[in-house]
């Protein structure tokens, strides 16, 4: 099996696994308990918090642990909307559904939402952000890097523009963290997820610059200074901390060599087009379309041959919705259902890339042969 769906989730790093094991076995203790057992797990959680904070250049006190990227995005949008009823929001149109759906919900609850324009590569112009701001705009939400096509946004410039106007900026950095350098300069809220960086599923964090201003989604025992109560997922957070520390100490960033090798070989086929931008793109992400071939069929055919890729976003079981991201960059409804996403990992090898291109080529040719009139009932 060849796994090329790292944007959906990443394999647990062996060091993360090692670090988590005691907390899935002999260690016991609710971090809020007063006794030694509690102190032990409390220390582990706080150590993880410091590691995550260090990895994004922030103070530990501003890191709120969550159940993952979706919760962080909900906390940010719903929280700010609750604190500012009826206010105006500016949101990128190519966000993950965990940003789009809360944005739709706050609209239903009385907020106004302006969706930003993107160019044919999914990129947002900082000037367009400024132009969209209104006197009562309270929050701009832009993802650092897009999960489907890989576009990396000019976050620095967007952050500066928001800061200049005193508007809060939320950045969903779930896909960017670990792939591009991430820091919190001029950013007010930032979502992170552990399972995209070799950590475990089910934990993440929200960076919150000014904690007092963010109404919580949950009410309970007061953990996370009341921002997000609930007994901590100790094993998960320990894993998150180790994964975050590994980013900080990573010797090199993943580069785009293998991605381009994959693209260059696929481009030899007829009727292939690139949905991902060549520049300002995550080094591991390549989203392509094959004329006339449905993305979901191609993904299934590749799976039957042992290659794991994805169409659009992994989320939504049984859903075959055309990608809103591809629609936003100008693809037709048909093309938007045709996009196939290859997302490489740190351990992806050149042999895996070459084997993949062989299989894709064979499948594409077979599918086109089958679709042609001469092939009926052959």
């Amino acid at each position, binding site marked *: 099996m060849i796994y090329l769906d790292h944007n959906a989730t990443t394999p647990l790093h062996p060091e993360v696994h090692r670090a988590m094991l005691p907390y899935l076995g002999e260690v016991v203790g609710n971090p809020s308990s007063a006794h030694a057992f509690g102190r032990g797990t409390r220390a582990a959680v706080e150590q993880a918090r410091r590691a995550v904070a260090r990895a994004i250049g922030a103070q530990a006190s501003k890191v709120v642990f969550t159940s993952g990227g979706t919760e962080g995005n909900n906390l940010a949008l719903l929280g700010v909307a609750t604190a500012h009823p009826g206010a105006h929001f500016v949101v990128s149109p190519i966000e993950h559904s965990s940003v789009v759906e809360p944005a739709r919900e706050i609209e239903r609850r009385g907020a106004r939402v302006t969706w930003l324009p993107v160019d044919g590569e999914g990129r947002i112009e900082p000037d367009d952000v400024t132009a969209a701001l209104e006197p009562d705009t309270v929050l701009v939400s832009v993802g650092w890097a897009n999960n489907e096509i890989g576009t990396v946004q000019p976050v620095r410039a967007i952050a500066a523009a928001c800061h200049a106007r005193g508007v809060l900026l939320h950045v969903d950095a779930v896909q960017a963290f670990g792939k591009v350098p991430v820091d919190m300069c001029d950013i007010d809220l930032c979502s992170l997820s552990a399972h995209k960086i070799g950590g475990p599923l089910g934990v993440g964090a929200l960076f919150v610059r000014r904690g007092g201003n963010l109404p919580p989604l949950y009410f309970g025992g007061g953990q996370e200074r009341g921002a997000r109560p609930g007994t901590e997922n100790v094993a998960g957070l320990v894993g998150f901390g180790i994964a975050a520390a590994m980013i900080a100490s990573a010797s090199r960033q993943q580069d785009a060599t293998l991605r381009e090798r994959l693209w260059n070989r696929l481009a030899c086929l007829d009727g292939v087009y690139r949905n991902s931008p060549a520049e300002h793109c995550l080094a591991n992400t390549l989203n392509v379309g094959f004329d006339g*071939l*449905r993305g*979901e*069929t191609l993904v*299934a*055919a590749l*799976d*039957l041959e042992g290659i794991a890729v994805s169409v659009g976003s992994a989320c939504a*079981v*049984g859903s*075959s919705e055309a990608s809103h991201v591809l629609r936003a960059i100008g693809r037709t409804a048909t093309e938007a*259902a045709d996009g196939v996403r290859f997302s490489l990992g740190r351990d992806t090898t050149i042999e895996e890339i070459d084997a993949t291109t062989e299989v894709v080529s064979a499948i594409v040719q*077979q*599918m086109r042969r*089958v*679709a042609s009139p001469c*092939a009926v*009932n052959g």
Partner: protein
Amino acid sequence: MARQKRVTKLPLAGSACGTDLTGRAGRTVRHVERRQRVIVAMSGGVDSSVAAALLVEAGYDVVGVAMRLWESNAQETSSGCCSLDDFLDARLVAEQLNIPFYVMDFRDQFRRAVVDDFVAEYRRGRTPNPCVRCNQFVKFATFWERARALGADLIATGHYARLRPGADGAQLLRGVDVEKDQSYFLFAVDRTMLHRIRFPVGELHKGEVRREAARRGLAVADKPESQEVCFAPRGTYATFVERQESGVPLRAGSVIDKSGRVVAQHQGIHRFTIGQRRGLGIGLGGPAQYVTAIDAGAGVIQVGTSEHLLSAGLVATGANWLGPPPRPGDAVTIKIRSRFPPQPAMVHRVASDQFSVVAEHGLRAATPGQAAVLYDGERVLGGAWISRCLPGATAEPRIGARSENGELVVTNSR
């Protein structure tokens, strides 16, 4: 009397039985060299689940696909189709069978071929049969194309029907379980497709299928089945038709009796089908009144008594033959609804795209828009869409009398 325990035997993957049907030697050799891949349409129901299990046990390379046909909405769909629960059930069974499983999107084709036709037929004063059209255009057409794209040799479903090799190609037979037989809904499948299809549960009775599911511990063994139109529960068709966009408004109109006298008002012809008693707004007292005709152009419903529902025969158009078409004078049986037993009839006229039959005991409530399917014993010869009735109730038809040019004469005994 003890019943012999029937063990379902499927043609083994790569065996001669499946490949002989193609009649091409080169293909036969290729097939026996590797396992045949079959894509099973898995609805999450017990029939398709057992079908998949039987194919796995027979040694096929099985892949399960749940077909997303319609936008799933708790209010709109009946249980048993396209709900998230159904996909999960299918997925669960696939996991138990250890086969790959995908959900694939057929909504566009389904809307165009099935739903739009459903609405249009009601507006034309006819009664549609969406299940036949789904089989004709989606399940054994588009689904097959997608299956081929996945390298499939065959497709399979949980239909209660059988296929058997014959001298003139594969033959479609009714399922062994006469009560559950679904061969009626399959008449419009392209004949050239038959050798690509497997119906693993067609040899079984429904009770046996449930037992086979339970025996294998399949998650859906006790799941209640749905016999309804998948995109609109029974009783909601009229509302469904009203909700779909169309240029022509559905208007109220008159209900008239045989003499043309107005006896009631109706709220739209789309609410009625031939033979219907309810919803006519006709007072009690006097013999029961049934819908006998629907005039879409005039927006008029005609009613009559039970005898008025009998016709001598019918004319059906848009024929699809699954074998050589019968000839005038041939004795056949005909079904005009899936749940009505087959009626003895004689073929009157036949052309490549239509036929007419005269039924020995007459036909009751033959409905324009429904399928008329002809059988030769167990075998489905083909069928067509009922266009109109041949008038008159025939108690003792003089079938067999021929005119000078050899044409069959049908007398109206009234």
